[in-house]
Structures are given as structure tokens and as C-alpha cells.
């Protein structure tokens, strides 16, 4: 489904990504783990077109999406839940979700998807008229995730969904991720919380200062000594 080939990204003189290659197959949940500043968010931003790569390819179902405008990528079936939620704080919960379906003109489909999202997140339904800025962090994460689901994406990019949440909420968010995965959505997950990420993933990549240092099945990596020392605190 998603294939990234030798991606290089520069911020001015800083070489942020030094040749990243990874693949996410249909229906897989793949996570990208690594320390702060390793380039995880940069990778996701480049995939969804918010950043332009200096070289390399991002193929979605074989099509190079590096060349198309960032705002048209969602039409290709890829949705991105950004780091820090980025909900529209001055809009209500429901307006946020409707914005998620901005590219859909069919009102019936929007209404159906809205009900589907409310099915995943009953708490959002309770708060549908509330301004998004007044929600708690966990609720905002649900909203950002729900908003990305409004177009029935084939693949979901999730950036640090557990950031800043209490341990109970982290568990809740990960159980939602697992449910989405089981419902057949392909997911590329970026996480600092390597333990939780490896717990739900099929495969994983370890990113270190702009390079992929290790890759393998989640179980393999979770058992690897280097990963255990560096990222699992063992």
C-alpha cells in the first residue's frame, strides 16, 4: 500500500532524514519508534506532503504522491492524525468532524460516516456541540482520530497519539488503534511510547537520527536487547 524509497529531507543545512525506506502492506499496523528528534514526525509530514523531500519517493498504491499538492493527498485515501491533535479549537466537535469530510460532497455519506465515528467514540457524540478547544487531551485525540476517519481512509498516519495523556487514556487510545486495525484500516503509527506501540503493531522500524537502524516484526524487536535497553527501559 505505502512504500517509501530512500527519502532525504533537509531543513536548510540540517539533514533531517538520511535515506529512509519503509513499506506498509495492506491491512498492516506498522510503527515507527525512536527518540525525540530522530525524524519520526518529519517522516510523516513528508509522506503527507506537508514537507517536501530533497530526494526519494513516496508511493501510495504505486503512485508517487510526492509530486501532487498536499491538500489532494486525502483524496487518495490517506488521512493524517497530526502530532498535538491540531483540532480546530474554535469549532464545535461536530464541525471538526464535518471538516474531516471536507472533500466529500455527498451529504448522505457524511451523515453515515459521522454516525460511524460516533459509534467508535460515544464520548464525542455526547460533546458534539462543545467547542473542541474545551475538550480534555484524550478527547481531543479522539476527535483528531475521528476527524481523520471521516473520509473512510485506506491508510491512517498517526503521530504520537499518546503524547501528554495519562496512562489510563494511553491504554484507551491504544485499544482504539487496535480496534481500527482489526476493522481493516492500514495504519502507520509514530510513537515515543515504544512499549505500547510494539504491543499493538505487526511490524516496526526503529529510527535513529534520520536513519532506520533496525526493523522487524514487533515481537522480534520487543525481544531485542538493544531495543529493550534504549526504548523499553529494561
Amino acid at each position, binding site marked *: 500500500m505505502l512504500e517509501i524509497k530512500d527519502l532525504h529531507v533537509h531543513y536548510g543545512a540540517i539533514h533531517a532524514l538520511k535515506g529512509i525506506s519503509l513499506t506498509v502492506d495492506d491491512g498492516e499496523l506498522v510503527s515507527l519508534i525512536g527518540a525525540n528528534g530522530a525524524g519520526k514526525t518529519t517522516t510523516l509530514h513528508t509522506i503527507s506532503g*506537508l514537507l517536501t523531500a530533497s530526494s526519494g519517493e513516496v508511493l501510495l498504491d504505486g503512485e508517487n504522491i510526492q509530486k501532487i*499538492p498536499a*491538500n489532494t493527498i486525502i483524496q487518495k485515501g490517506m488521512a493524517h492524525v497530526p502530532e498535538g491533535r*491540531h483540532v*480546530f479549537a474554535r*469549532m464545535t466537535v461536530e464541525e471538526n468532524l464535518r*471538516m474531516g469530510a471536507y472533500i466529500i460532497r455527498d451529504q448522505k455519506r457524511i451523515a453515515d460516516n459521522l454516525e460511524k465515528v460516533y459509534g467508535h467514540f460515544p464520548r464525542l457524540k455526547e460533546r458534539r456541540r462543545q467547542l473542541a478547544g474545551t475538550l480534555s487531551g484524550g478527547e481531543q485525540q479522539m476527535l483528531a482520530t475521528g476527524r481523520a476517519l471521516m473520509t473512510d481512509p485506506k491508510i491512517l498516519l498517526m503521530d504520537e497519539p499518546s503524547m501528554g495523556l495519562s496512562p489510563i487514556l494511553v491504554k484507551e487510545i491504544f485499544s482504539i488503534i487496535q480496534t481500527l486495525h482489526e476493522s481493516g484500516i492500514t495504519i502507520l503509527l509514530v510513537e515515543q511510547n515504544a512499549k505500547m506501540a510494539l504491543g499493538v503493531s505487526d511490524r516496526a522500524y526503529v529510527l535513529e537520527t534520520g536513519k532506520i537502524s533496525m526493523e522487524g516484526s514487533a515481537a522480534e524487536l520487543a525481544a531485542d536487547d538493544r531495543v529493550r535497553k534504549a526504548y523499553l527501559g529494561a
Partner: protein
Amino acid sequence: MVTFIQFVITGLRLGSVYALIALGYTMVYGIIKLINFAHGDFIMVGGYSLFFLIPVFMGLGLPGWLAVVPACIICACVGMLVELLAYRPVRKKGNKLTSLITAIAMSFVLENLAQAIPAIGPDPKIPYTLFSATLSIGGVAVSSATIITIVVSAVIMVALYFFTQKSRIGRAMRCVSEDKEAAILMGVNVNHTIIITFGIGAGLAAVAALMYIAQYPKVFTTMGATLGIYAFVAAVLGGIGSLPGAMLGGLLIGMVQSLTNTYISSSMSDTFVYLVLIVVLLIRPAGVLGKNVGEKV
């Protein structure tokens, strides 16, 4: 009593014109955080468009005020061109300061370009006076221009509010003004949204120009400067970035001016306008309806 009614009506009329112009400032600021100093000059473009088009329309046997339709289109095009040719390239390369300087430069460019057109030139022109009939309300003589100004502005402001709240483009505008990156991820074309905002803001300036020349029938190349400043003060007073704020700010400035003119002295009106601005900003630094509250991360 008569004086009081006169003061209120004049205040509403002045305020409505300021509010229409302030909306243009606030919409553009909301979406790209730029004080568009050339916005006042869009009024001038509207004023001259009307000056030339009203006689044409009347010659064709049409009502003169209909000229506001092509004037709006001309203004909107000028607004969009300014964004496309000046602001967008600068925004890509430069920072906030370079954008601001570009805006000041565009103001001069528009004024000087207008003056360079032989049919415009440096001397003020007197447009045809529209809506000159006078009505009497409670013993107070009110020109129909005044009533039309107040009613039309009110209708436009309400319509604009619902447009931004309910329409697809309006929602896209709100999203871009709140969070550009997230808007892109939703599939919003940010550049289109910005250019539409410029078009709407500049179009409103043409309507303001019609209202203004109906009351003060004179057009000149720097006419937008003073009007623009009052409207800018109105936008800041109401809370820049907020549509209801621009409306409220405009009306407030109009009322303060009218109050000073009626009861104190017209030479003091600017003093009071800025006094009110300073007092309000001391109490509410983000303006009356400003939403410059701490962002929750």
C-alpha cells in the same frame, strides 16, 4: 431630542461604512496574520470604478447604484491580484515584516498607479450623487443614503456571518485561519481560500465606497487612507480577526465620532477615537471580542 436622534443616525451611518471596511482588514488578518495596508486603497479603486460606471449605467437607462456590481467585481479582482502578485510570493520567501512592508508598498503602488491614469489624475473628481432624497424620521431630516447605508451594511454583515459559519468556503476560511496545516490535511486548498478572502474583503470595500460617496461626493487617489485608518482602528478595537468584532468596532468608532461632532467639536473627533482605542486596549488588549486567549496545547 432631535440632536440626539441625529447623533445616533449619523453614528450608525459612519459606523456601518467603517464596519464594512473593517471586515476586509479583519478577514485578511484572520487568515494570513497580515495587516493589509492596501485595503484602504481598495475603497479608492471602488470609488473611481463607481465614478466612471454610474454615468454609463444611467446612460443605459439603468439605476446608477447598479454600478456597484461591476465595481465590486473590479475591486475583488484588484484585491486578488495584489495577493497573487505581491503578497503570496513574499509570504513564501520572507517573514512577517517583509509582508508588512509589501503591504505598505502596495498601498503606494495603487495610489500612484491610479494617479498615473490620465482620466484620474491628481485632482479630486465629483461623482454623481445617488440617493439624495430626504425623509423625515421623528422630525429629523434623514437622507435616503443614510438609511440605505445602515440597512445594506446590516444585511451584508449578517449574510457574511452566516457565510463563514455555514458555507463550505466559509468553513474552509475559518479552518485556514485557525490552523493551516490541519486545514491542508482536511483537503482544503489554502491558497484558494486566501485569495477568495481577499476577493470578498475587497468587494466589500466597493460597497463601502458606494455608501461613502453617496454621503461625501468626492473621489481622490488618497481617499482610502483616512477611511482605511479608521476602519483599521475599528478592527483592532473590536478584536482583529473577529468578524463580529469588526462590526462592533466599526459601529463604536462611528458612534464616538458622531458623539464628539455633535456634542463637543468636530476637531476633537480623532482625539476621542484614539482615546477610546487606548482605553479599550488597556482593559482588553486583544480588543472587545478579541480571541487572543492562551492556546491550549
